[in-house]
């Protein structure tokens, strides 16, 4: 009758396994199904009047950043890094596009002026592009390779180390 004594520890094994699986995953990290897939196309009217579209940027590595003027402090923290990275790498063929989501135009323009953004930025009417990219909060940044595939998605403010590593890997890619 020793098997009866083993019954309780044995019954707890699946429970422990289930908990081990559950506690190892971060419930706040929502993996994007778009990573390693082709980035959805977009065509937006930029704040400066021009048009930005993914199709026009084909063959160039792209940093696509979603932001909003009400996104404080994360968007304010990473904004100088975005502009600095753009200035540093644009001559090597890097492209950068900012998409402003659910914002008031005046506030958005103030944000652009405050950080002196020189890369194209565009509002996203109806949040169509944001939903197409599976954005659920700002800031979110997509690193898109020369083939138009999403190589990496970052949620939250970018750090210089992460930006550098991702941009280098995009530029290296053929």
């Amino acid at each position, binding site marked *: 009758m020793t098997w009866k004594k083993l019954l309780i520890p044995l019954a707890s094994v699946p429970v422990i396994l289930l908990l081990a699986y559950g506690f190892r995953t971060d419930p706040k990290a929502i*993996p994007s*199904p778009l990573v390693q897939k082709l980035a959805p196309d977009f065509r937006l009217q930029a704040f400066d009047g021009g048009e930005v579209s993914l199709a026009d940027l084909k063959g160039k590595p792209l940093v696509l950043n979603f932001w909003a003027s009400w996104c404080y402090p994360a968007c304010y923290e990473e904004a100088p890094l975005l502009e600095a990275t753009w200035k540093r790498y644009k001559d090597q063929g890097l492209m950068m596009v900012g998409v402003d989501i*659910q914002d008031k135009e005046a506030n958005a323009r103030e944000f652009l002026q405050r950080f002196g953004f020189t890369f194209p930025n565009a509002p996203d009417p109806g*949040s169509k592009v944001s939903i197409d*990219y599976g954005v659920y909060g700002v800031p979110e940044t997509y690193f898109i390779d020369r083939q138009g595939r999403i190589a990496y998605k970052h949620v939250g403010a970018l750090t210089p180390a992460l930006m550098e590593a991702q941009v280098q890997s995009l530029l290296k890619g053929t």
Partner: protein
Amino acid sequence: MRAATNFDLEDRVREIASELRCVVCQNLSVADSPSDLAKEMRNLVREQVQQGKNREEIQAYFVSRYGEYVLLSPPKRGFNLLVWGLPFLAIAVGGGAVYLVVRRWTEQAPAKRPAIDPAYAERVQRELKDRE
């Protein structure tokens, strides 16, 4: 006629949106959330319904963008089956255990009564007789 069509459309949009998770909320569906993003998602659902897309196609679009996380009910396959199956399995196993325990109680009750020591029984009989 026009009003009836709109009513049907809004009903359909609500039905589909109620199964989608509002990704910026805590446990709210796209149909119930007052957030801007949920409103835009409802507009998108409406647009797709008007394009003649069915519930599965619209769900597939949102899943391709946000992953299965966007569905409020996890689909019944793979690892998710645990969520759907475990409660019923637990009820079955628990019910079986209760049945076995109860059966043992009712069966073993008479058997467990201690046998009477024959010497003691004889003494009781004798003393009862003496009293008469």
